């Protein structure tokens, strides 16, 4: 059942390639997980590469590189649990093409590039708001290797 829903989600959600402004202010009303003071960012879209760069407006030292969740892990939506999927859907995932799911990426000390698949960011590029979720029950980790060192 979940796989069928996910397949439909994959059909509906566009890639990060968008018809939206390339640079805009993005607000996370609740901040990020464990970082409630990181509320506002300047977002730079790199749509052809499914990338989104966030520069914090609250802390000059904070910058995120985000990657479309499906590019980080093609099976992402197929493996997300039913409850988490339902929560994403209430945020517009799957029904509103402007809503995308991204994950933060980081370069680990050993040089590997990893994606945090357990803490995805749901971003509504039309309303310019975002929310970070914590997903349970996934087979991956916060350091899912997407490019080896």
């Amino acid at each position, binding site marked *: 059942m979940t796989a069928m829903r996910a397949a439909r989600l994959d059909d509906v959600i566009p890639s990060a390639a968008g018809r939206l402004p390339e640079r805009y202010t993005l607000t996370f009303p609740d901040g990020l997980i464990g970082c409630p003071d990181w509320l506002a960012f300047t977002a730079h879209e790199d749509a052809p590469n499914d990338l989104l760069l966030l520069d914090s407006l609250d802390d000059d030292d904070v910058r995120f590189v985000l990657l479309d969740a499906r590019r980080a892990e093609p099976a992402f939506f197929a493996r997300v649990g039913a409850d988490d999927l339902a929560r994403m859907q*209430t945020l517009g995932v799957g029904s509103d093409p402007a809503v995308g799911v991204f994950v933060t990426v980081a370069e680990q000390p050993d040089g590997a590039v990893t994606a945090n698949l357990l803490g995805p960011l749901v971003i509504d590029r039309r309303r310019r708001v975002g929310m970070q979720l914590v997903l349970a029950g996934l087979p991956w980790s916060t350091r899912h290797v997407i490019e080896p060192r």
Partner: protein
Amino acid sequence: MLVLTRRVGETLVIDGNIRVTVLSVDGERVSIGVDAPRSAPIVRQELFDAVQAENRLAANRVAPDRLLTRLGGAPAAT
């Protein structure tokens, strides 16, 4: 922190619509059942902590251009 004592099978109610029930106790392991609306996500503390830690690592400004290049994007404008 509010500290309450409960027996197996007894329940706590939080905010009128979240019910936490002690299902069993086996040594140091306690099984807990939680009934909550979907709008109240429930995760283990360690998972929350892991996401928080990764946020702080990913927020590091160190070499974002190199990271973008490795992912196929253009170096970031400053």
